[in-house]
């Protein structure tokens, strides 16, 4: 399990006096408004694929890079089963994989890349790499410098899954993938990930991942607006797809063939969560949603 406690991070005035101030009520130093992430507290549990959503610049990539140890938290702590990611201990690194939104074209064939680097991850499975490359219809014998961005991304996704990491962090993994590849990605994610893994996927393309991410985390400026499972969301919010107008709807949008309306689930009815509508609802009613889900 990954435990995040009072996490704070700022770019620029790193650790400077202007990035913290004394909160007289709390009686200790707290981060100022300049922080990208401020007082973030949450647990990421095993066996779940978390979807990390948020507008541009709210700190999704920052959070991912903090979780995998590429950045040092300036306030608070991150613990991956008792280990600090920023220590970059090989034992933890070999259990995690961070797939950046931009991937480097290495000057070698995909299969050679997998052979060359795969051995550092204890759970790496070369057959699985070849298999996932097959799912993506990618040629393992192709040189990575000759691949398109989408092919390169699929190679790295295949490699990430073949590493069998316990902690998998993916930043915009479906960016640059064509339509069939997005379906192949969903298939690969459900078939080739460990059951006890903690997976965190940051994305703007919520439709690409609608059926695989659960729970949903929605980040806002310095804050977590929502961190809930689909079950919890559908317990508290009702997603109506009929053409009938709901008077007290929190959010309503016309879609081909009708409407999508989100309202409070006062009757305990079941409904299918539409993540895009959820995102917009949360953003339009920040305090209300925080109040409902933090009860």
């Amino acid at each position, binding site marked *: 399990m990954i435990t995040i406690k009072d996490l704070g991070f700022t770019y620029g005035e790193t650790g400077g006096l202007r990035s913290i101030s004394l909160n007289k009520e709390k009686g200790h130093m707290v981060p100022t408004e300049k922080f990208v992430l401020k007082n973030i507290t949450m647990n990421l549990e095993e066996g779940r694929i978390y979807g990390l959503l948020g507008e541009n610049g709210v700190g999704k990539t920052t959070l991912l890079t903090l979780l995998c*140890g590429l950045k040092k938290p300036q306030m608070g702590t991150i613990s991956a089963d008792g280990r600090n990611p920023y220590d970059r201990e090989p034992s933890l690194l070999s259990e995690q994989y961070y797939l*950046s939104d931009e991937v480097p074209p290495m000057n070698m064939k995909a299969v050679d890349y997998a052979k*060359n680097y795969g051995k*550092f991850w204890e759970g790496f499975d070369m057959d699985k790499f070849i298999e996932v490359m097959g799912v993506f219809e990618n040629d393992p014998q192709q040189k990575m410098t000759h691949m398109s961005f989408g092919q390169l991304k699929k190679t790295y996704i295949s490699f990430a899954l073949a590493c069998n990491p316990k902690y998998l962090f993916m930043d915009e993994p479906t960016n640059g993938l064509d339509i069939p590849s997005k379906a192949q990605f969903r298939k690969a994610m459900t078939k080739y990930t460990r059951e006890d893994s903690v997976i965190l996927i940051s994305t703007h393309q919520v439709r690409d991942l609608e059926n695989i991410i659960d729970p949903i985390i929605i980040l806002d400026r310095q804050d977590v607006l929502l961190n809930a499972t689909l079950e919890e969301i559908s317990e508290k919010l009702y997603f109506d797809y009929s053409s009938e107008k709901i008077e007290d709807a929190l959010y309503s949008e016309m879609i081909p063939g009708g409407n999508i309306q989100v309202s409070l689930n006062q009757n305990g009815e079941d409904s299918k969560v539409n993540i895009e509508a959820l995102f917009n609802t949360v953003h339009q009613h920040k305090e209300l949603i925080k109040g409902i889900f933090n009860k």
Partner: protein
Amino acid sequence: MFNFRRFGKYFATDVRTCWANFGLSLLTISLLFPTVLYIVTTAFNLILRSSWDGPDMGIRVFVFAVAMFCLVVTMPVKCYGRITEKQYGSFWLTLPASRLEKFVSMFIMTCIIVPITGTVLYLGADAIICALDHTCGRNLVAGGMELLRHMSDLQEFTMNLGEESLTVENATVAQELVRQINSPWLYVDDFFGITLPFLLGAIFFKNGKTVKTFLAIFAFSMATSIIMSPFMAEWASEIVTNANNDPQAVISMFSHGLFKHLALIDTITDTIVNLALLAGIWFRIKTLKH
């Protein structure tokens, strides 16, 4: 912190990655430089002097030094410069090996493996060219051996002291001086002093890595020269004055380990600078973030 088995795996990967990124440059510099030098020199001699003559020892030693310098300057940027880029750097930092293993591998590759490989390839190419065309004379290895033999049989010694120069025409003293500067570490230290700044520059600067490293070296050299030159000038002038007044006293000074002490001072200062550079490289790896 350091696991030999994992280090072995990491080092092998580092060699392969470095070969993929720098292999062609290594071959080009090491093999093409002596070949092009031979072709160009022979062609010029044929056109201008109408004679078939290969490059002489002097020009070959000069081009060898230039080639090795090019190798040392370009290698760190090609092999490790990308760790400052978000794309590759994120992957490199999260690769499951310890910081110390990555640091040691980087040092061995930059300061030992690549320079030795480059030197062996260059000298091999030079030896083949000289074997095929005797107009080149002795190859660089044979020339070097000859120089060493000559040094052990030295009859006189000239020392440059700033604008002044001092010649000691005494075989025993000259050979004693050679013996006093005959420490391999003196030269290894100097060599690391050339390679390490470029490695640090490659992983420290985000762009313009080589140019900025040259500028940093220039600034550092200027600063040390400004501080040290008054002392050096005074010391050199004292020796030259003493030599004019009492040549025997200076010879005695040389015979009693002056060069040995100078070599020791040089080694100590180089070692301090190299340790500072290594510390810089280590802290850069430790604090690198993306």
